[in-house]
């Protein structure tokens, strides 16, 4: 709600632009598309630099996108062809926007309940992504040097075979991985601080592959979830408080009895790994 008000203010400023912003080339755009049916959609979003917000929308819209960008250099992309929806901003010469002294903003709302393969690619952005309420059949999230907070605040009503998170040099946090309803989750992180929250409603057993280069990793594990952790590291310390080492693996005490189990394969080069239990 607060965000929506912010956009109204931004648009109001843009609409008053002849008076207030002579000489600047910022453009504010609102784009939307009605929801025609509930057929599955492949959604691809690319955004270079700035603030990036994604969440679900309750209205009868497939998407609504609010953008603020420098129109001299970039142009918005909103292309819906067949079952493919491509959104974002690209430079006039093509490719993603990776410049960013004064960056823009993209706020995207996607339809709840519409089955979608979602691909999010963003660069040097400050991202707030809430995938709660979206009906995801596939997720690919890729980010460069960003500060990203991903929250799956509500359970995904559809089963997802695979979810992939790739983070370059980032401060990257994902919460509510249990709500993804995914069988296989892959996290590939380069450098930075990574937080993976396994909270949420697990509906099946799952595998979580984590590959990390250099940095710190925090694993937030809810009590009651069965965890088996296999670690293959070079110079990475592990604080495995609450896990019991059995042979080559670390397991939660109730792993055998747990309703749902998550097997974590961790491949880390340098850094620290910490297991934190949450209620």
């Amino acid at each position, binding site marked *: 709600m607060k965000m929506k008000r912010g*956009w*109204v203010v931004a*648009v*109001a400023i*843009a*609409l*008053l*632009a*002849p*008076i207030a*912003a*002579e*000489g*600047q*080339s*910022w*453009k*504010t*755009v*609102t*784009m*939307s*598309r*009605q929801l*025609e049916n509930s057929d599955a959609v492949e959604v691809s979003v690319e955004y270079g630099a700035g603030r990036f917000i994604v969440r679900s929308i309750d*209205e*009868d*819209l497939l998407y609504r996108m609010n953008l603020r960008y420098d*129109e001299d250099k970039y142009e918005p992309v*909103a292309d*819906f062809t067949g079952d493919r929806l491509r959104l974002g901003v690209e430079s006039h010469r093509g490719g993603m926007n*990776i*410049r960013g002294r004064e960056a823009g903003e993209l706020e995207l709302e996607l339809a709840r309940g519409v089955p979608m393969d979602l691909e999010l690619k963003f660069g*040097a952005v400050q991202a707030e992504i809430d995938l709660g309420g979206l009906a995801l059949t596939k997720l690919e999230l890729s980010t460069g*040097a960003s500060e990203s907070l991903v929250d799956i605040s509500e359970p995904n009503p559809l089963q997802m075979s695979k979810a992939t998170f790739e983070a*370059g*040099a980032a401060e990257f946090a994902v919460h509510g991985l249990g709500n993804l309803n995914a069988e296989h989750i892959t996290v590939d992180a380069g*450098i930075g601080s990574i937080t993976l929250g396994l909270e949420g409603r697990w509906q099946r057993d799952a595998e979580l592959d984590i590959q990390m280069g250099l940095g710190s990793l925090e694993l937030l594990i809810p009590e009651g979830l069965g965890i088996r952790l296999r670690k293959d590291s070079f110079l990475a310390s592990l604080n495995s408080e609450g896990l019991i080492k059995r042979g080559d693996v670390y397991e939660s005490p109730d792993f055998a009895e747990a309703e749902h189990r998550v097997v974590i394969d961790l491949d880390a080069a340098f850094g620290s790994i910490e297991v934190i239990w949450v209620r």
Partner: protein
Amino acid sequence: MHMSLLLRKALLLLGLTALITPSGVEAQLREIIAKNVGASSSGATLELAFADDGELAISLDDGDVLVDGEVVGSFESGDELDAAWRTLLGQAMALENGALAEALVSWQPPEDGSTQTLDASQAVDEALESALRNVEPQSERPEGSLTISGGDENPLMHLLVNSMGRLGVLEEALEGLEETFQIHVDEDVVIEEGSVVDGTVVVIGGSLRVEGGIEGDVVVVDGTLDVRNDGYIEGEARVAEARVVRNNGEIRGGIVDVLEDERADESEMRNRLRDEIREEIRRDLRNEIRSVARFDDDESFSIMSPIRPVVRGVGGVVEKLIMVFILGLIGAGFLAFAGENMDAIADTARRSPGRAAMVGFAGTFLLVPVWLLGALALIVSIVGIPVALAWVPLFPLAAVMAAVLGYITVARNAGEWLADSNVPWTGWIRKSNPVFTLVGGLLGLSAAFVAANLISIAPFLNILSGLLFAAGVIITIAAAQIGFGAVLLTRAGRRREHYGTYDADAAWAEAMGIDVGEGSGKGSKNEG
């Protein structure tokens, strides 16, 4: 049977009535499927896509008012139209589909302002109205009567089943007509001499012969209108796919061809198609000619076959000469602006060609790793990301420039060597003119390629031509590597590897043609 006919006629009546019903009924708004509202300091844009595939784009941009890309007026930043439009778009941002359509249709254009502002406002308002309403708003029409008569059952059924096409035409033909209608479907009608009909006479799929008078309009679709002696039509004769025969009769309101616009569109489309086909044929021909000139892989016999080797060989020579010309120009630039640097590089390439070549090869192999690792290191440092943005494109550019500079410098050395040599056709190369030596050297380094191309013209000498071509490649790589290495060793000519010193004994010996002892003519190495 009779009941069936009545039923069918009733159905037809229903269809036709829908067309000519006075528009007391509220016009329906089109469904908006997608919207794009944008605003910046220079203008504000509204783009709509409708569920029935139509689109509308209205923008106030840089002083122009555009509707679907066409300029319909002008505005000034901050004037009444600009302000009203931006206010409307402010609302449009938060609205969707039905509510959005209603807001757009009910927009009140500004009533104050200059004539140009008012005209442009009117144009925008009309564009919104016409795009958003399914049915054009029409003025209230007085109650009228409707009479339908038709031929036998089959033509009526035919019309009903195929009504879509004709109804569309009818809709255009009946637009704006008032009063009473007489509709005749698939039957011939005669207005006899002495009789006068009030209202509009519509004939579909039949002929209308007017010997008397019609105090109204006439619509003929897919038929014939024949106005005989003393016959007259007071209003317009609207025809669609119909023939008009005027045998001394009068059509006082004139003849309107309802499909004229469509025909014009068709004609335009035909012309465009013709132009596109013509252009396509031309393009195919051009490509064909090009492929013949390039002698693409198609070696089949054609009229050009006998002269292919000649064109290919001469083309190759011309290509090399153009390359020499371009490199000569670049070299002249280096000579003018970085002559001393070239001297230092040339000196190193001349005195230590082996070392320069080794450094050149090593540098070449290390280029990509250095580029990638440099970029990675800068990105990893986060603060170095802006530098990385410059590093990624500029490093390869600098490497290419270094290679070109090195090659040109080696070419100049080669030119100097040719000037001192007794090689035929090199007498024109003068060491006193660095441009001559440079061009001479470039030609010298390209000589193997030129010879390969010329020899390829002759039959049965492909092997020799191939060997010469290979020699050219080796010479070029060697020159480029020596030059690149020399550039690296001398830091692009800023740090000399060798310094020549004035040797008085050597100068004396050279001037007098005698030997005065050791050390003459040798420069001493000095690490700078």
